């Protein structure tokens, strides 16, 4: 189990225009969703976690060690990130080569890399497509190939940037299973996401970013009960939670199952 400590983290692309204005929190074993308006600094934050950007002030500690002294390559052995747009990530002309690329770059031998890659393709449901050109896959399956590429690296920390883009019901269910499995295997899972129903279903903790600050940080349920703060941050409650609010329930239910269960218990 790895820990990530974020201490007084500041960042700006242009001097005088701070994107992150002093973040302080510790990422623990709970699967964590970072939510917030477009432009709230979510992607910037995860780029800092990957060492792709350097903080202007403050620091990030990975297992107690400051990442600013580590190279991007060294960080990549610990922290994997699935890009928002798979086209930014994928460049090989065969799915299997693409998925083996990351493992090979972080020093796995070819045989292990192949085993890990095939396992990862199995998990995302693309085992049959291993010889396909990733660009012949539709956007939803290309995104799954991008996820497999990171899973194969077997890093302690896995970051997903908008994992549900272009996914239908089955795709979302598959990604939910992947996230739950990673979490149960002791991996640290962090996601940036706009799909509140998905967060309600899978994530244990939610952090709300707004104007460069983490303005809410609690269990998913507690965060989603804060209707007004969410709306001020250009977010909204998950759909089932909206219904609970409209019906004047004191308790909020995160999804259909909880709602039905709660209703049955009251009968």
């Amino acid at each position: 189990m790895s820990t990530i400590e974020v201490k007084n983290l500041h960042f700006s692309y242009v001097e005088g225009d701070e994107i992150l204005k002093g973040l302080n929190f510790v990422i623990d074993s709970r699967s964590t969703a970072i939510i917030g308006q477009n432009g709230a600094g979510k992607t910037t934050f995860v780029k800092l976690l990957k060492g792709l950007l350097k903080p202007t002030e403050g620091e990030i500690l990975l297992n107690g060690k400051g990442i600013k002294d580590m190279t991007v390559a060294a960080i990549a052995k610990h922290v994997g990130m699935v890009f928002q747009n798979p086209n930014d990530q994928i460049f090989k002309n065969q799915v299997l080569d693409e998925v083996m690329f990351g493992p090979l770059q972080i020093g796995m031998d070819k045989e292990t890399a192949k085993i890990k890659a095939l396992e990862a393709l199995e998990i995302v449901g693309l085992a049959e497509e291993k010889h396909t050109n990733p660009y012949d896959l539709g956007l939803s399956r290309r995104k799954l190939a991008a996820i497999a590429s990171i899973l194969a690296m077997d890093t302690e920390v896995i970051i997903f940037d908008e994992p549900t883009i272009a996914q239908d019901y089955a795709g979302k269910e598959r990604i939910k299973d992947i996230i739950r499995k990673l979490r149960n295997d002791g991996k640290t899972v962090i996601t940036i996401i706009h799909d509140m129903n998905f967060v309600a279903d899978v994530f244990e903790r939610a952090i709300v970013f707004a104007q460069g600050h983490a303005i809410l940080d609690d269990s998913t349920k507690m965060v989603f009960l804060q209707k007004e703060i969410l709306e001020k941050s250009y977010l909204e409650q998950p759909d089932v939670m909206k219904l609970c609010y409209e019906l004047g329930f004191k308790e909020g239910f995160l999804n259909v199952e909880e709602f039905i269960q709660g209703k049955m218990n009251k009968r």
Partner: protein
Amino acid sequence: MARIVIEHLKYKYPGTNKLALDDISFTIEPGEFIGIIGRNESGKSSLCQAIAGLIPNFYKGAYGGKIFIDDMEVKKVGVEELCETVGIVFQNPFNQVTGSKLTVYEEISFGLENMGIPREEMIKHIDDAMELLDISKYRDRYPFDLSGGQMQRMAIASIIAMKPEVILLDEPTSQLDPQGREEVFQAVQKLSKQGITIIMVEHNMEKIAAYSDRIVLLEDGKLIDIDTPQKIFSRDDLDEYGVEAPVYTQICRELGLKDRSSGYYPITLEEAKRILSGDRKGEM
């Protein structure tokens, strides 16, 4: 105001043996807001590309049947002519950015320049579209420096600026924050009320249920159903098509609560609230 008639449409991508669109027929009235749902690779994007004429004129492949937009047969007119009537917003906004323009403002002007719209009129169209999508503040930014959500708004604005009579949107809000998504739905609904026909592919069932006049359900390239959201989401066999009903419908179905007047399950927050408040009689 354009009426769309699709007659026995069949299509196969080059180098494949399977029909991506398999004998689809239906009619869309001017100003309708049509939602297209179905599992991935059921033909949703292909159907959009066909209505926009990119199938078959750009993608080639084997094509059968006909699509008419008023009296224009899509296959027979060039994409360059059709794009004055039909606009399409791609699934991945990155694929839509021209790459030949240095600012958001110029990017949105691209379509208008190519249509030869007079300067004064162009400026007005661009300003209106930027305002509708709330991106005026990014007007001087470089298109590829935008975030995913900002780029998605720009892509929609650049189509709206061309003032087409039909707008096709392929998952236009996937990268937007929840309020941004709601704003785009409202902006698009406003256009639909002005008589512009809207055809939207979307996986967010709560939104598509709340905004569509009718929903097209596709499976394996075939048209399974086209009907009002209430009727579509009250079907018992949705899971066979890889589709989930809105959470409001799921809850009311579990509890056996139908709308007495229509005989269908509720599909929106408001409908579910109405039925559940009647049902619960102060229980919870």
